[in-house]
């Protein structure tokens, strides 16, 4: 276990399972909050100091040891004396180019301590993506680190104690990026909101922080819609519907083409295993036969013979998550 900064801690939760190569809507929402996290980190470090009331100013010798801060701080240090919300909004409004630089710097700082890795996404094995040479990779937070961060956060906010400033900042960042539901259950979320409601009346910092809104309604709506769609196709009914209509959720209906037409079960399996190995996935065969059962990256799939139409039909298998 390592001591992470607020920006790193937040990023380990928010970047987990996000596309690492493209700036998706969900990742953009996460990175805008990561930029705001840099400002909050300055507040926690004491380089963003309170002047009078809720007016803050950056210390003249503001310096952060981490490279990621350099992509955000130039955009906010020149603002002079402003309310905290103004600094947070200015940080979140940095350009997409700077957001990408911020992501790269944060990811590098975390990869250096083995807390974050990039893994291939199964979609990269799909016939359409593979033949178009579209590479898809995603971030994966190291399991024990993720667990230690999220469980410490849950304990701090759900226990009958006054939460620390770091916990409140992290909670606000997760709220604004629409990631709260990744950490808390619905029942816990009600308790969290109750607690924040109580703190709003007693702690001015909480009032300032939770009174600031960074999220773009449309971005969070899109994120929530995509998440619910993915959750639906993971249900038994959704899996069946998605098999018939793969367009519904492509990531859960990967088609892998085989070398030959009317291939037999054994050859089909060999082609699939070869493609998975080529893309860097770990795979073990649990059952052979016409419909083999494969364990790919710890998730069990059935490889069902299928074809995709077009000018010339392409034969292959479609991976369908096996109901356990």
């Amino acid at each position: 276990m390592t001591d992470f900064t607020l920006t790193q801690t937040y990023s380990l939760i928010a970047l987990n399972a996000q596309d690492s190569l493209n700036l998706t809507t969900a990742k953009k929402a996460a990175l805008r909050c990561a930029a705001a996290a840099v400002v909050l980190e300055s507040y926690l470090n004491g380089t963003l100091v309170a002047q009078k009331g809720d007016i803050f100013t950056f210390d003249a010798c503001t310096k952060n040891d981490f490279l990621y801060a350099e992509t955000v701080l130039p955009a906010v240090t020149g603002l002079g004396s402003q309310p905290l919300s103004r600094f947070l909004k200015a940080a979140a409004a940095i350009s997409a180019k700077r957001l990408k630089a911020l992501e790269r710097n944060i990811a590098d700082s975390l990869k250096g301590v083995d807390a974050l890795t990039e893994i291939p996404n199964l979609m990269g094995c799909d016939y359409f993506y593979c033949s178009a040479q579209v590479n898809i990779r995603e971030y994966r937070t190291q399991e024990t680190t993720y667990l230690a961060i999220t469980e410490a956060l849950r304990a701090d906010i759900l226990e009958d104690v006054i939460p620390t400033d770091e916990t409140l900042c992290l909670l606000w960042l997760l709220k604004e990026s629409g990631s709260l539901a990744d950490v808390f259950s619905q029942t816990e979320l009600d308790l969290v909101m109750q607690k924040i409601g109580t703190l709003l009346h007693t702690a001015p910092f909480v009032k300032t922080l939770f009174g600031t809104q960074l999220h773009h309604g449309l971005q969070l709506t899109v994120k929530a819609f995509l998440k619910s769609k993915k959750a639906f196709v993971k249900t038994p009914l959704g899996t069946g519907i998605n098999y018939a209509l793969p367009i519904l959720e492509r990531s859960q209906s990967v088609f892998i083409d085989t070398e030959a037409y009317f291939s037999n079960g054994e050859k089909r399996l060999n082609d699939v295993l070869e493609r998975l190995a080529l893309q860097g996935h770990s795979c073990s065969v649990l059952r052979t036969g016409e419909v083999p059962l494969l364990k790919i990256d710890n998730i069990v799939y059935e490889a069902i013979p299928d074809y995709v139409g077009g000018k010339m039909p392409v034969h292959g298998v479609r991976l369908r998550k096996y109901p356990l």
Partner: protein
Amino acid sequence: MSRQRSLEKILASQYISIGELSRITGYRYSTLKFYTEEGILPFEQAEENLTRRFLQTQAIQRLEEIQALRGKGKTMAEIKQHFLGNNFQ
């Protein structure tokens, strides 16, 4: 409001909170809460509704013991019997 303690400070202190225990051991908060409520994880509390404090070394040792018993296939009732029978608390 208070500030979060660094890992170095947590490891050096005698008493730690449940969040800090979760952070350094990697145990789920719900698991630790369950163990405390079952009475098999010792803690100190000055008054009701005050922070539960855990003696760091004692708590970690107890978690290791519980883990070992779970590894031997003991049920939670047997584990509870084991510790409470040993005049625990």
